């Protein structure tokens, strides 16, 4: 059995606050999580949920209050682990006096890549993220989206086995988001493990083999997106065309666009409804199952967390 690419055990981070830093606030509570080798793992949660804290702990930018973590079987305190890990910080900012090519060259030197490999790799990376024509422009002249692309390039420059991306789609236009999605999928095809945090749930649903949902510093669920939200359809949506008003009771529940209607009905009532629509002269265009989305699952968790927090506040415990 292959060891997980990323593994955390009871990972906890407390931040001191208040007068003389005497109070402690939990940013992350006992995180136990595994990211398997070769998968795309999405880390989703609202702002302040603990996503960036987790990633910073993994990259040793901050230190845990308790717990341990391993990447590729090595403890995160092992500096050699960083040779095989690529990291994109949230809202990346780099040395603005450098051009993208110079920045990549600087990082390639830190990775100790030979001169011949460096040049070729830098050109390839700039091309991959769509910065080949802007590679010699200083980063201070870059837009937010271009900085994000430069950040992606530096994260994968040294051909890492594990890539950790903190909000990689943030600040990108639809084309940029599509390109980042393609890069992530490309990395998976190359056999790499990708873990990324996001609050854009459609991206997670589209890309991830598994997702972890974190709310209030606690991991609330891990699994394949369809597994998390449940496989059972909650309703069926009938899409039909009707010119008259002969099926008035049904039409009251439908959403209308011109002569076309969308109507959601429980599975048990599906065939009866179709019969009624046909009798009224409707032309059925399609009937599709409606499943719960990751967004609904996510919102349920957030609402539950808020309700629990409010209850604790009221009871004073």
């Amino acid at each position, binding site marked *: 059995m292959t060891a997980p690419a990323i593994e955390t055990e009871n990972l906890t981070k407390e931040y001191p606050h208040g007068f003389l830093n005497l109070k402690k606030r939990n940013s992350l509570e006992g995180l136990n999580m595994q990211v398997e080798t070769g998968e795309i793992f999405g880390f989703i949660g609202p702002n302040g949920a603990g996503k960036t804290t987790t990633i910073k702990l993994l990259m040793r930018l901050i230190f845990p209050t308790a717990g341990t973590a391993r990447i590729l079987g090595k403890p995160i305190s092992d*500096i050699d682990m*960083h040779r095989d890990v690529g990291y994109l910080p949230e809202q990346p900012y780099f040395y603005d006096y450098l051009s993208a090519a110079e920045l990549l060259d600087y990082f390639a*030197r830190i990775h100790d890549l030979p001169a011949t490999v460096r040049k070729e790799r830098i050109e390839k990376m700039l091309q991959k993220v769509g910065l080949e024509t802007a590679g010699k422009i200083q980063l201070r002249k870059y837009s937010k989206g271009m900085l994000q692309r430069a950040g992606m390039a530096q994260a994968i420059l040294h051909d890492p086995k594990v890539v950790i991306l903190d909000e990689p789609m943030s600040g990108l236009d639809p084309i940029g988001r599509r390109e980042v999605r393609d890069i992530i999928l490309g990395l998976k095809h190359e056999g790499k493990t990708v873990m990324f945090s996001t609050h854009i749930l459609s991206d997670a649903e589209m890309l991830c083999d598994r997702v972890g949902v974190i709310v209030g510093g606690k991991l609330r669920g891990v699994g394949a997106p369809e597994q998390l939200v449940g496989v059972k359809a909650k309703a069926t949506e009938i899409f039909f065309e009707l010119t008259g008003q002969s099926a008035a009771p049904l039409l009251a529940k439908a959403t209308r666009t011109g002569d076309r209607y969308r109507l959601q009905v429980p599975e048990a009532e599906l065939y009866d409804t179709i019969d009624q629509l046909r009798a009224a002269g409707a032309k059925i265009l399609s009937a599709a199952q409606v499943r719960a989305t990751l967004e609904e699952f996510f919102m349920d968790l957030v609402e539950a967390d808020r309700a629990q927090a409010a209850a604790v506040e009221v009871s004073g415990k």
Partner: protein
Amino acid sequence: MKRAGVVALNTFREAVRDRVLYNLLFFALLMMAASVIAGQISIGIEQTVIVTLGLSAISLMGLLISIFIGVGLVSKEMDKRTLYAVLAKPLRRWEFLLGKFGGLVLTLAVNVAAMAVGLFLALIYVKPELERGDATVLIAVYFIWLKLALVVALALLFSCFTTPLLAILFTAGIYIVGLYVQELRNMPMQMMSGGMTLFTKWLSFLLPNFENFNIMAMAAHSRQVPGTLIAQNTLYAAIYCAIVLTAAVVVFSRRNLK
């Protein structure tokens, strides 16, 4: 160690691109004006005036660079969060700190060397034939550079655990007190309590003695500098820098990056 060198070269490049070396232009103008004025108003002491003014300017400009840029070496990277991507690479925190220190010390070396050339040109203007004793000016410039390296190490240490403003104040404060360490040692101890005597004595040995590096009077009068003083100052600066940088590494290695 190689990675520290990469960071050092990048720090040097940053200083050059941030136009830190523009002060050389100001220094060149100052030296040109001084040599012309000194030639007209100070008969017989042109060399003393030029050397004193030149070395003071090198020291002052170097100090401004050391303190203000030294404090920003780490704090600017933390504020702008450029540090995140760097420390996620296979780079130890001590390598990063050493690289930042090395980069600024290299910048100062280039800066001080260029100003020394300017000073010599001004000296040649007022005194066309140089003597062997004039080489003392070079040793004085070397001592200024050693002093600046020490200031950079202190600035780096303070910036690792406090705000940039406080780090500037602490570094400048220690520099000023460090100029009077000898006076502190020569204080009449019999007038103080036992505890105070011990404290003053310890403090005088704990603080860096910046006055050790000042041989401006010797340089102005072309007096020979003993070899032992050169060795002693070099060793003192190296050991003091090593201690301060070790303290900075200890603090920085445990620091959570917000």
